[in-house]
């Protein structure tokens, strides 16, 4: 071997002038003496979260204002705080609020769940609506409708068990010394098609009334929501959202790969299991409340990631983006065709398909994803 003089660290290319965000949006550390709290302040992430959150709230109010009995936006906001004439209060709080809240919470649940799955598998395609969880919930619900099981349980609970069972199945089939990346996606797509076929079979087998009831649920729908659906979803979110945010610290190391994460002191398998359970729980409760609203869990985390300029989908901002998208899509669904209310899933499906194509093209080009 020739005597190779060790070179000085290769000349560092000067940092590109516009490499990072404008100075005001750059990350900066903060450190308090008492209490000893410290961390990294991410202005761009915070700003994105606030803007998307405000946008979602605006759509929420707008949705409450629209309808056969129009209410002005200021009156809607007042009515939310219990101020206004009794007629307006009844329309806003009793008739319209469950639908709007379901949309808000379902979007939140799907967005956070998508962020969890995409971070955990390090692959944007591994979102719960791609790997069969929502389809599994759908099959369970249709089976319950057709066979008349739903009586005591309610469709939502059945959907919940369907999603959980499918998650277990995908995880078990994809397990080979750890379940990651493309194996989960390929197995998930297979399972998803099996569920879709089973659903089609059940719909064909059931009578016309049952088929209609099932189909209304299968596309993802916010029509005719009740407080019961809002309550169970709100309770689920109140438990699962803090858990997910608490696991955020480990998601940051898990993102570097299992071995690196373990080397950095991450309890990899317990964290993975906890993330899986919260992710499945969120999507299961969301699906139970509104049916499988297509593409929200896939697209919203990717949108949030690009808006916030982070390297992994930020869970909370993904959730807010999900809420924004579901509420916006619901408005479109209600207003696009005069006289009919389309199911919200049709609109998110139409909007989400191009996002999926774009992700596929990109993943191929980058050759990444394992």
């Amino acid at each position: 071997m020739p005597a190779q003089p060790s070179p000085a660290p290769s000349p560092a290319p000067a940092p590109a002038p516009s490499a990072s965000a404008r100075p005001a949006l750059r990350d900066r550390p903060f450190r308090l003496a008492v209490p000893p709290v410290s961390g990294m302040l991410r202005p761009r992430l915070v700003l994105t979260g606030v803007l998307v959150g405000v946008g979602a709230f605006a759509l929420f109010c707008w949705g409450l204002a629209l309808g056969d009995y129009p209410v002005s936006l200021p009156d809607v906001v007042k009515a939310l705080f219990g101020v206004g004439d009794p007629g307006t209060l009844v329309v806003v709080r009793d008739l319209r609020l469950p639908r709007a809240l379901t949309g808000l919470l379902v979007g939140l649940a799907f967005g956070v769940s998508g962020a969890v799955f995409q971070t955990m598998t390090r692959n944007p395609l591994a979102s719960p609506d791609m790997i069969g969880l929502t389809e599994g919930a759908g099959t369970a619900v249709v089976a319950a409708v057709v066979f008349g099981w739903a009586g005591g349980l309610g469709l939502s609970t059945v959907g919940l068990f369907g999603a959980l069972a499918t998650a277990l199945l995908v995880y078990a089939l994809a397990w080979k010394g750890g379940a990651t990346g493309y194996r989960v996606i390929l197995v998930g797509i297979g399972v998803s098609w099996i569920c879709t076929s089973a659903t089609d079979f059940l719909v064909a087998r059931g009578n016309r009334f049952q088929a209609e009831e099932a189909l209304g649920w299968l596309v993802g729908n916010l029509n005719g929501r009740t407080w019961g659906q809002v309550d169970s979803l709100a309770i689920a979110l109140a438990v699962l959202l803090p858990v997910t945010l608490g696991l955020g610290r480990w998601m940051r190391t898990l993102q570097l790969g299992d071995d690196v994460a373990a080397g950095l002191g991450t309890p990899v398998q317990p964290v993975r299991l906890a993330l899986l359970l919260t992710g499945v729980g969120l999507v299961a409760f969301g699906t139970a409340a509104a049916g499988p609203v297509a593409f929200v869990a896939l697209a919203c985390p990717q949108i949030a990631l690009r808006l916030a300029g982070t390297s992994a989908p930020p869970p909370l901002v993904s959730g807010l983006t999900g809420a924004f998208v579901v509420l916006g899509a619901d408005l479109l669904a209600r207003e696009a065709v005069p006289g009919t209310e389309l199911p919200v899933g049709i609109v998110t499906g139409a909007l989400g398909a191009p996002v999926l194509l774009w992700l596929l093209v990109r993943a191929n080009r980058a050759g990444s994803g394992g």
Partner: protein
Amino acid sequence: MSTTDPHPPGIPEPSARGPELRARGLHLAYDGRPVVADLDLTVPTGRITAIVGANACGKSTLLRALARLLAPRQGVVELDGTTLRSIPTRELARTLGILPQTPVAPEGLTVADLVNRGRSPHQTWWRQWSAADEEAVRAALAATGLTELADRPVDELSGGQRQRAWIAMAVAQGTPVLLLDEPTTYLDLAHQIDVLDLVTDLNRREGRTVVMVLHDLNQACRYADHVIAMKAGRIVAQGAPAEVVTEATVEDVFDLRCRITPDPVSGTPMVIPLGRHHHDGGDGPREAESEAESESEDAVPASVD
């Protein structure tokens, strides 16, 4: 271990005696296939150890077991006499760092953010950027020459810079023991030397114990204080490079006949492989080459001995 002190006099040795890593009666398997059998090993504290061997001899598997990424089938790995399995995850991550082979950074992750994540065993949910974290990250960036590139995404860097960024993460972790799995893979020669020089700095300046799996025997001889040669899951020879890297050992371990001469720069052993077409007849390489060419394709290579 000799008592010569490689540390320059001015620089204090942070941990004169760091933790001792050793394995006893280790049996390791991968996918049910036994890879390492009944292996005993004591890693010299405060030195650089290189594990060498042919492909699939179990060297990476051994490194993974030393880092607790792989549970032994039998036997134990001990850190200062405590079984690795009984050490809490976080505590282990403050003592022992591991850099797996060719890790992949997520798209858009900046160098500073990656290096910062090396601090996670020292952080809590509410304390994610202490003064110690900041200082460790700054020092790691400076040691790896990446200060200027701190705000750049890792995936936009060159291969050598990228590898330095990962090493910087491991440096910021601040562990007295550092395990590196083929840190020079896929790097060009200049960047390989660059990375190995950096590893030497970490050892000489900060007294960190380093264990690395290396492919290149000459680099192992030059940069390691202690060389472990493995074959089929067993240690064939270990000790100072000059004791381990001999013509007989190389032939045994790599199934390759060679000559050993002193490295003209470092004086450590340098392996000159023979192969089928080149062998030393004492008349220089040209002669040997033409001789080799005159042989028919399927002829048994002429033996020199």
